[in-house]
């Protein structure tokens, strides 16, 4: 198991390096750089171009592409994530700052959607064809059909502005020390973020459950004279769980970047929001690190999924 994990992690390295190179190359091809974004366009006409060139060079932007890439990647490999070009803040600090916010939001959404989605999906599958099932199906479809920011905006309008139940956004304010202080801020973004995921998990859980219930071993279980709940839960749900776990596992990358839009809507100071502004201001080192980090997250998530399925499903043996 451990060697398997080590193997998998090792094989990530060339992948990540190739990807990092491609991103770097891509960004290189875009016009503009961090310096051109440090100046508001209204003021650009008055700036001295020579001075800006000096700044570019002092930031290392004037060096050839490969040199810059090499400096950067060798730094990363040695654990030096570099500095944000725009503000000079160590990228590691930015991550330490933003990651907890993103994780908090995404984990909350993941938790809500997993629990709610599996329960509703199971109910839907067990009452297949009934009004409950059809109702849930339609509601689930609606959930994946409405743009999430639209949900968010309307939620802000209704629950924050009109009803004044929840804060409009943000994550914390001075004096909000504990998780419970911040909870009201978390509720709306987490719920809105979870809507789409819940609907997805629900649909998946439903079809997975239906699939499981149509298998022969369900008949075997019934032929043993066990009560229906045991057949459905212990035999059906347990088997249906594997694909659901896989699905949720593949949602794990959301923990890093997938909540970009919701973070924007609710001013949630997370990685996603940071990424958007880094992309806008062409802060290469930061963009690179976020992108790499998210890639790593995806790859590690798939590793975790593999491990989880191996734990859940005895048929799966690692390394084969």
């Amino acid at each position, binding site marked *: 198991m451990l060697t398997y994990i080590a193997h998998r992690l090792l094989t990530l390295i060339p992948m990540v390096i190739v990807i990092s190179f491609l991103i770097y190359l891509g960004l290189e091809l*875009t*016009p*503009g*750089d961090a310096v*051109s974004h*440090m*100046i*508001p*366009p*209204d*003021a*650009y*006409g*008055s*700036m*001295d*171009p020579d*001075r*800006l060139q*000096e*700044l570019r060079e*002092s*930031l290392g932007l004037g060096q050839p592409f490969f040199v810059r890439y090499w400096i950067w990647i060798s730094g990363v490999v040695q654990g030096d994530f570099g*500095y*944000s*070009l*725009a*503000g*000079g*803040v160590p990228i590691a*600090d*930015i991550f330490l*700052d*933003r990651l907890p*916010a993103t994780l908090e939001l995404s984990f909350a959404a993941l938790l809500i959607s997993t629990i709610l989605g599996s329960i509703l999906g199971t109910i839907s599958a067990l009452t297949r064809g009934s009004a409950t099932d059809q109702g849930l199906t339609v509601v689930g479809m609606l959930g994946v059909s409405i743009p999430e920011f639209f949900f968010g905006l309307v939620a*802000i309008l209704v629950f*924050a*502005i009109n009803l*004044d139940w929840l*804060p*409009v*956004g*943000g*994550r*914390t*304010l*001075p004096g909000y020390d504990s998780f419970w202080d911040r909870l009201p801020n978390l509720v709306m973004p987490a719920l809105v973020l979870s809507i789409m995921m819940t609907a997805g998990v629900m649909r998946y859980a439903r079809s997975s459950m239906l699939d499981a219930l149509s298998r022969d071993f369900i008949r075997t279980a019934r032929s043993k004279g066990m009560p229906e709940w045991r057949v459905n839960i212990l035999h059906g749900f347990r088997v249906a769980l594997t694909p659901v776990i896989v699905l949720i596992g593949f949602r794990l990358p959301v923990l890093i970047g997938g909540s970009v839009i919701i973070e924007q809507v609710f*001013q949630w*100071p997370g990685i996603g*929001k*940071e990424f958007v*502004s880094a992309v806008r201001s062409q802060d290469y080192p930061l963009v690179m690190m976020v992108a790499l980090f998210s890639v790593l997250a995806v790859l590690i998530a798939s590793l975790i999924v593999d491990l989880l399925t191996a734990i859940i499903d005895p048929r799966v043996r690692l390394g084969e």
Partner: protein
Amino acid sequence: MNKLLTTSIMALVSAQVAGGATAQAINDSELSDPRVRQAIAYAIDMETIAETLFEGAAIPAVGLTSDPANYPDGMNTYSYDPERARELLAEAGWDGSRTLDMVYYYPDELTANFMAVVQAQLADVGIDMNYRLLEGDVGAQIGGVPDDPVNGPAVVEWDILYGARAAIANQEYFNRFAPGQMPTVPTIDAMVPLVESVNATTDPEVQRAGYQEMEGIINEGAYILPLYYQQLYIFESDRINRNGAPYGNEQYNYNSAIETWTVEPNEDGEAVAYTNGAPMQFFEVPWQNLGIWVHSKYVFDTILEADGALTPIGGELAETYEVSEDGLVFTFTLQDGLTWHDGSPITAEDVQWSIEAAAQFPLTHPVLASTLSSIEGADALLAGDADNMSGISIDGNTVTITFEVLDPNVFLSFTQFAPLPSSYFEGADPLQLQQHEFWQMPIGSGPFMIEEARMNEFTTLVPFPDYHRGEALIEQIIALPSADGDANLIRNAAAFRADFGYSKNATDVPSLEEMEHMTVIPANIPYTRMFWINQFPRN
């Protein structure tokens, strides 16, 4: 029918006013024909746009500068007159075969809407126009001067640029009319001596005369089309009491006397005020955007102080100051016993270091940079030939600055210039000043000091107990990271999380005005939105 009649009468009248007979294209570009540019000006119904689209939060512009005292008599307002526009186009031989390429760099929806309206109004007089948002390196796409100052070809790749000039000094509007400076306008010979004259004096009267003449020339030739003046909207909640302190140009530093403001205590009895303008990613060096960030305004004190109209009114860190007769020597003395927020004394050495660093820091505001680079020895320092500026000498708390050439904005610049504690920057490269770790928790000299900074979440400020004008009365300022045009400002205001601040965004204004607990006060600022018309032929 009635409308048709009125417009044709108006057209007759205005045809007599603008003697377009002599006007013609000066190079291969149709846009170098003043009649075409005037036609564009006539075609745009700025009054109606300001009233409807901008909901009154824009003032149709006449000249480049927003100060009517700068205008000569008989400025043409180019009021909406499509008939006249068509006539002018016909005279200029505009055949409609050319589709103008309009660019802009504001990504907001209001701008896009404005573009759509302009497009429709130009189409109405027979000018096809497509608009697009500039992406990537915007600076490079709007800058660049043709080698041939008359025939081009143009370096920029558009016909019209919708942009703005936000100026601290009027010179900023005109300085690029100096030869070989303007990406869009072929050199206008009459402008050259005028530009020199307004830069060579500190006498407001002389400057004004120059401005008037230049505004007249630009107005007549429609070299640049001023569209509207953007006001600044200062907002306040009913919890805040300024206690008589002035409203002013919040984009820059002025004496707002924030230490005397009070705020209604919250449920816990704490005097906490919310504002916007907290940094989003990092604390910016205060020399760049002089006043827009909360820390630039309240954490750093400047050498001199200005009133709300940015007129110098006295010393802030400086106890006394004076400038010599010829305007080339500026002397000031710092107050005794000033300290930084960390308790260490503010010294003349700090000031000297700051001036030298600001002169080298590439992102220093242009007006400030222009002043500082006029100091004797600045060139040598910038070229790396000297370690210090020979023009700066200190004696105790007194700093004497000798200029090589006269700078018209010495006072203005020093009302905006905040020194930094040099002890934190030993060995730092002034080029990379922004990247210095100091900016993760800056130490300043102003009435408030930074208590806690969580980027993208909030920044809190607390009174600096040893502030030279006394400790501030507001116990805590919580600044949220919303800029103007950001929908979050309105949401925060609606949720009682905006007690004071400002916005330039026209869409914010009606929203804020509708809130019972908010008051919006417009402030006139030198900020003009305009069309730069590219008069060089494009390849």
